[in-house]
Each structure stands twice: as structure tokens, then as C-alpha cells.
């Protein structure tokens, strides 16, 4: 009798160990990429072969690379399902560019295309088309931004934030009327689309703003300023030689040394090595709202305040930023301003955002918190096809700085492909006026 039960036990064991091991429904997908050039370049026969391709898996940060074939296509076989950043780039030499377009240029021209956070799976498919484009060549560029700040207890917190703007051309430029803007848009990683005022990619749909004239290409043609500051001058007050730059500081102080804040309290940094000396900054932002760290340093010209946000020019140290620079003979204070699309009633206390034409923008840089947890992109590919970030995070003294493309004599030409993912690198401690 007991033998029967042992046989039963053995039968159950055999049954239990014979279950077939199945595979999940999600399977790798062949990612087929096709590149073309933006409409404004299609009059010319730019090459589609040997375009460099890069896909970055946003989950594990793994990168795969390839080059297009003669017909402008390339396949990444058996790509794991998930979200990817897809980038394409090709450099046309100055001679080649002139031969193709008849337009003389000093530096090589970089065409690039970028698609961020693209979902690849069997349901969506793996066919992606990338449109190559190129922005303005030369002129002012944003060279360095220290937005992360330094150690909260031992460093200067956010007081040592600054932006450096560089003359990347071969001519002397004048910084007068140069404007820097913090671009404003939604920072929600997963916005509630049922609200009706978001674009599919998560940015605000500014056509829904109260007062926006019907027919305005409110999203395609304009950006909106959270803050907007302008270099003073009469047009020729502040010359900047080729290969030189200006530094705009939140506080033009030597942050390594003790200073007296707006409340008369002497503030001492515990570890000066974590912060920097901004006493040689060309300009600073002073709002005068009584914020303790908002200092008006004597002898340093203040930026003109066209629009401000908060109690001081404090950049988002987690990285949810985008900045643009432009120079115009118009007065941006005369440009229209609108509330953000989530506003339902406009009152005297409603924040209004100055509407800035994208066509005026000389250069733009976008940052993100990191490779994941990103906020909706504020700048389109014409201004910045990528983003940069601080791998070490905020309050670590780390900053972003533009790479040097080449050196002509003693003048450095900074890389400008309109893709800060490629154009910028990290520096553990920023160097105002310096290079990495």
C-alpha cells in the first residue's frame, strides 16, 4: 500500500519538473534607421552614407553605434525592447560644404538629428526616420554653466552659479544687449494628458494660453522666458575679442573667501576647495528683493532685468533647465507675455512669460536630471538636439563645459553641433574663463 503512495509521489515530482520554460511576449526588435535631410537642405545633395548613428538604452545606458550604408539606412539587429535616445551626426568639411552649397564657411558644418526617449517594442515597431539639420554657424555660444552648485554645508550651496558666454567667431563681437533667458515649460515627467494643455511629448501647449491669438504658432515659433536678463551698454561698451568670453554670475564674489550677505551676516565657506572665485565676473544678476545671498557687488555691472523669477537668479540645480541667448535691437520688454496654459484665471498676481521668437536665438543649451527621470524637452532639435547633465548630481561642484573642437593659433574654436549631448562635457570644478 505504501509503495503505491511512493509511486504517486514520484509521479508528482516528475510532473512538476517537466514544466516547459516559456519566453515572455516582449522580444528583441530589429531597429531600422533611415536618415534624410531637413526640408531646407534638400535643395542640396548632402551625403546620406557614413552618417554616424548611436542608440542609448535609457534603462542601462548601454550604447550601440553604426554608420549608414550608401542608401542612408542601418539596422541594429535584435535590439532589446525599451526606451532609447537615437542620435545621428555627420560632419561636412568647410571645403565640402562650400562645394555643395556654394556658401563659404570657416569651420566644418555638423548636421545632426536626435530623437529622445523613443519606445521600441514589437507593438510600436522598429522603423525610425531621422531628419538631419544644422543650426547657425559661429557667433556667440554658451561655453560653461555652473548650475549644480557646491556642497550644502561645506561649499557655497547655489551662490556660485554662473554662465559663461564665448565668442566663437573670428571677429570681435559686442556683448551689449546680449540676452540670456531661462526657458520655461512643463517639468512633469508624466503629465496628465487629459488636462488638454499638453503636447504629446509632455510640453505645454502654449496655443491654449489665455490671450494667445488664434493662428499663432505658439509652440513652433516661440519660447517662453522664466527669467530674462540683458547685458547693458550702448552697443559698443563691452567688446569681446575672438576666443574670449564674458562671465555672468549670480554673485560676482570670491566664494572661497568669507563675505557679508545682504543681512549683514558674515558667511564663511568651510571648504574653499569646493567652490570658485567669481570676483572677476563681467556681470552679475542683482534683483534687490532682500534675499540674503543676493549681493550687489560694487564695481560689477548688473544685468538689466527684463523678467525675473524668484528672489535671485537661482538655476535649477537638479538640471531641469534650458537657456538661450539672443541679441536683438528690439526691446524684449515690448514682446507679448502669456500665462502658462494651466492658468484658468489671469489676475494681477499671475506670472506672465515673455514670448521669445526662436528665430532670434543664437545658441541654446538644455540640461536634464540625468539619463532617466527626464522632463519634457524644452528646446527643439534646431536649438539643441540633445542635453547635458551632471553625473555626480547637484551640490557636487560639478559643471558642464563645451568641448574644444580645434585650436587656430591661440584661439580655441568650441564645438557647436547644436547637440549638447555631443558638445558638452563635465568638469569636476568649473573654471571661469578657462578650459578643461
Amino acid at each position, binding site marked *: 500500500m505504501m509503495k503505491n503512495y511512493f509511486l504517486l509521489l514520484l509521479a508528482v515530482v516528475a510532473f512538476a519538473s517537466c514544466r516547459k520554460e516559456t519566453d515572455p511576449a516582449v522580444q528583441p526588435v530589429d531597429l531600422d534607421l533611415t536618415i534624410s535631410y531637413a526640408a531646407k537642405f534638400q535643395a542640396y545633395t548632402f551625403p546620406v552614407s557614413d552618417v554616424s548613428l548611436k542608440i542609448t538604452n535609457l534603462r542601462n545606458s548601454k550604447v550601440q553605434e553604426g554608420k549608414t550604408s550608401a542608401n542612408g539606412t542601418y539596422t541594429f539587429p535584435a535590439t532589446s525592447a525599451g526606451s532609447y535616445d537615437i542620435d545621428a551626426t555627420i560632419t561636412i568639411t568647410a571645403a565640402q560644404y562650400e562645394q555643395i552649397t556654394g556658401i563659404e564657411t570657416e569651420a566644418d558644418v555638423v548636421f545632426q538629428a536626435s530623437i529622445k526617449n523613443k519606445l521600441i517594442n514589437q507593438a510600436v515597431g522598429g522603423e525610425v526616420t531621422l531628419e538631419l539639420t544644422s543650426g547657425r554657424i559661429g557667433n556667440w555660444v554658451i561655453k560653461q554653466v555652473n548650475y549644480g552648485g557646491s556642497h550644502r554645508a561645506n561649499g557655497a550651496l547655489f551662490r556660485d552659479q554662473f554662465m559663461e558666454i564665448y565668442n566663437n567667431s573670428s571677429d570681435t563681437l559686442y556683448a551689449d544687449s546680449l540676452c540670456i533667458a531661462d526657458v520655461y515649460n512643463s517639468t512633469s515627467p508624466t503629465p496628465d494628458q487629459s488636462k488638454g494643455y499638453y503636447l504629446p511629448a509632455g510640453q505645454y501647449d502654449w496655443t491654449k494660453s489665455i490671450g494667445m491669438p488664434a493662428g499663432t504658432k505658439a509652440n513652433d515659433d516661440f519660447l517662453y522666458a522664466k527669467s530674462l536678463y540683458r547685458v547693458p551698454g550702448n552697443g559698443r561698451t563691452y567688446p569681446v575679442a575672438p576666443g574670449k568670453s564674458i562671465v555672468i554670475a549670480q554673485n560676482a564674489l570670491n566664494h572661497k573667501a568669507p563675505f557679508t550677505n545682504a543681512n549683514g551676516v558674515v558667511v564663511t565657506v568651510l571648504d574653499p576647495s569646493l567652490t570658485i572665485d567669481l570676483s572677476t565676473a563681467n556681470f552679475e544678476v542683482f534683483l534687490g528683493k532682500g534675499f540674503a545671498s543676493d549681493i550687489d557687488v560694487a564695481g560689477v555691472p548688473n544685468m538689466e532685468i527684463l523678467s525675473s523669477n524668484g528672489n535671485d537668479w537661482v538655476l535649477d540645480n537638479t538640471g531641469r533647465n534650458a537657456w538661450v541667448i539672443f541679441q536683438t535691437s528690439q526691446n524684449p520688454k515690448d514682446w507679448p507675455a502669456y500665462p502658462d496654459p494651466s492658468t484658468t484665471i489671469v489676475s494681477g498676481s499671475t506670472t506672465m512669460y515673455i514670448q521669445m521668437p526662436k528665430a532670434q536665438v543664437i545658441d541654446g543649451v538644455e540640461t536634464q*536630471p540625468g539619463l532617466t527621470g527626464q522632463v519634457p524637452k524644452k528646446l527643439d532639435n534646431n536649438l539643441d538636439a540633445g542635453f547635458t547633465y551632471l553625473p555626480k548630481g547637484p551640490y557636487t561642484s560639478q559643471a558642464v563645459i563645451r568641448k574644444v573642437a580645434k585650436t587656430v593659433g591661440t584661439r580655441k574654436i568650441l564645438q557647436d553641433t547644436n547637440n549638447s549631448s555631443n558638445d558638452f562635457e563635465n568638469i569636476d570644478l568649473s573654471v571661469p574663463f578657462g578650459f578643461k
Partner: protein
Amino acid sequence: MRNIIYLILISVSLLCCLQPAAAQKQADTSQLEPRLVSYRFRDYEYAYYTQQGLLLQHAPIERLGSITLGYSYLQGGLRARQEADKVNVASLRSEGLRKVKKITLQGYFGFTRSWEDSIGYMHSAKPEDPTPYYLLAIKQGHWDRLHYELGAQASTAVLNDKLLLSVGADFDLSSNTRNSDPRPEISKYALALNWGVGYRITPKHTIGAWAGYAYGIETTNVGYSSVMLNAAGDAYREYQTFLSKGFGNVLVQRSGDVRRMREDDKGYRAGGYYDGKWMGFHTSLLYKFQTSRRTYVKPAAATADSRNDMPIASFDLEQQWIDLFMEKHKGSDLLQLRIRYNSGEGSDYNNELAGNNYIYNNDNINAHIGYVHYTQSRPQYELFLKGYYDKTYKADGTTSHRWSNSYATIGVDFSYYTRPNADKRFWVFNAHPAYRKGIDHYLTAPTAQQTFFTTDVLMPNTAYYARNAASIQGGIAWQTPWKKQMLKFGADARYEKAADLEGRRVNLQAKVSLFY
């Protein structure tokens, strides 16, 4: 809350304590012993027949009541990567079973407070759970856990004992916190209800069926006391919060994300059984089926307003049990047999990938055969031969990770009861050596898809679960009558050592029980 729990504890205990005055007068030693003495075979009977209310009608236990205070200490490096290095547990458990005329009642209340050290790579109240969705951090930390469980069931026979009816409810509540960054708080509650109907075909053979519904919610919130660590980049990687979305599939949750997740668990359960006399054995065969759908939601916006929560995935788990329990008196001795087979199949639906990305399969068999030798109508020793077999498979589509592990454990459980005199004060000695043998295991993880989770957790765990290990458990207890009840003082120790892994695992327990 605490007062309510104490009230429930007392009520459940009294429910099983009260007896009609006539029965009290008639109590004598022979009636006291079956319910007051804790024997191994009776523990197995109780475990089987209290699974479902209908089975109470067939339990060979007339009455049983106990309150136990216990303390347990577990320590050692021989552990899975997501388990604690050291665990201290204080517990209080009260349970009882009694038959009042035609109604059989069974209830329990349990409370545990545990302190667990050095847990990393998982913020979860259930580390052995098959679900792939949970928040985690690399940084190890100390956990405080509170757990309450409460349940009751009743069954009766009507219509000349032909028709059996049962009803039951179980409630579970837990709170888990960590006291160092990152600081998760996990709260869980679950409620399960069931109803059953049985039919006595003949006085010796009965069949029955039941159905039930279960619902539970588990929420995890992760906070930081340090603002810097809250916004930490890769420089503070071990303090970052990650979301596991599969097997090896982990995604960092940066400061822009709201580090919160809720699991809604709904499920149905059903089963059937046969109980009767067969070939001289009291035989009970049970089949259970249980489904569960867990939906995972996270905030849609950084405002952390729960009204913006959006589902990110779901996990369906189906489980089945076949449970055979047989007992027979051979002369004055007892033979007992139990074979329990459990099968589980789980699959997720990942909203981002719009498909099933994770698969979980598990089969396990637990069996024992036991012999109880009686002397002077009292069990003198018990000898059980026990075996366990387990096979688990996990697969993740997006990471191309595959994992499989099977092992078997065989052991002997021997208990000896001393009965030197007639006043029922006696000692219990127990020894339980066992051996675990890894049968088959593999982990495939393409290099291009590996993350820190693969190298830090999955690879070490593969070696751990595939281990060949020997364990020895020994216990001693002393039982003595006390005011018509029985007090038991017991201590157990278990030691495990693997042949092919460093480290050991030691478990010490002490208990004081009152049987009434």
C-alpha cells in the same frame, strides 16, 4: 488600534476557552491530554484541517487552545542577497479550535515585531514574493516591522448532518520602516473572505467546495532626511532609489520622480475536497485554486497628488494546490502521510512596453511520512521522514535574463517524550537533521544587458539557491500542568552550513506556551 487588538485577542481566546459547565465537571486527565499536549503529528493535523472551514468538520481534534510568546534570533552570512544578515523577532500568537454542539470554531491572532539588519536591494515586505515590481536601494539598512494577523472560521452540519456550511475571514496588517536614507515606509493590509458548502454522501465519505475573494493594498513611500541625498546623482549611487520592473530590469528614480508606488491586489479563490475512510486510512484530498491580479500605480506628476497616480504594470499570479493527508492507527500507533503539491504561474503586463515582459513559474512538493509510537496510551516518540522539492523559473524579455533553479531537501524529524511519572510533567527532545541538494540551475544574462542588479544580486543569489547544504535542528521543551492548563517552555536551535558557499546561518528560538 492597540486596544481594539487586545479586545479581539481576548475574545478569540475566550471563545475557545469557554465550555459548558457540564463539560468542565467531566474533564479528566484523558480528556485534557489530547488538547493540552503539543505533539508534532497534532501540529500537522491542525495545519491541514484548519486550511478551510469545511475541513474543520473532519478534524480529529476536539478542542485546542494556546497562547504563545516567542523570541527568535536569526543570523549568518549564508543568505540570499536581499535577505537580512540578522533578524530578531518577538511574537505573540493565540489560536484555538473547539466544537460547540454542531458548530466548529477556529480562530487565531498573531502579532510580531521584528528588527532586521543589513537589508539592501529591496524595499519590500515580502522578499520571497514572485512579483518583479518593487522599489529598492543599494544601501543596506535596518528595518523595523510590525505585523498583525487575525482570522476566524466556522462550520456546521445541518439537515441531519448531510449538508455542511462554512464561512471564514482573514485579515492581515503590517507596517515596515527603515531608519536610514533612503527611508521607505511600507504599509499593507489584506482581507480574505470565503464560503463553503459540503455534502456528506455517506457517513464515511464527504465532498465539498468553496469560493472566496481577497483584496489587499500595499503602499511604499521613499523619503530622504538629507536634501543632498534626495537629489543625489551617480556620485551617491548606493543612496539612489530604483524601481525593479522585471528580472534584472531596474530604473533609477531621480528627484524629479515621486518615489512612491502602490500595489492593489485582488483575487479569487476556489477549491474542493474529499474526506473519508479509504483503505483503513482517514483520507482527505484537497484542491485549491487561487488567482491574484496586482496592479502597480505610481504618481503621474511631481505634485505627489495620489489622484494623479497612473498604472505602470500589472502582475497576474495563478496558484494551485493538491494536498493529500492520510492517517491510520496501526494497533496503538499512528501512521501519518501528507503530500502537498503547489504550482504557480505568474506573468506581468508592462504598460511602457505594451506587453508581457516577465514570467515566473514555480512548482514545489512537500511531503512527509510519520510514525508515532504510543506507550501506555500516550505518544512516546515520533519519527517523520520529510522531503521537499522546488523548481523556479524566471524570465525577462527586455533584459534577456533567464534563471532557473531546482533543489531537493530530505530530512528526519525525531521527537521523544519522557513520561517518568503520572503527573504529566515531562520533557520533549527533538532532532531534525536535513540535507539540501541543488539539482539544476542556470542564469543567462547577456553582457550588454547586465546592470548592477545582475552582478550584485542575481549572480550571488544563483549560487545561494543552488547550494548543497546540511542543517541540524535540535530542540528541548518542558511541559508542566498549571491550574488545569499546561505550560510549555521550549527552545530550538538550527544551524545550516553549505558545502560550496562561505558562511552559515544560525536560528535560535525560545517560546513559552499556555495550552488550555
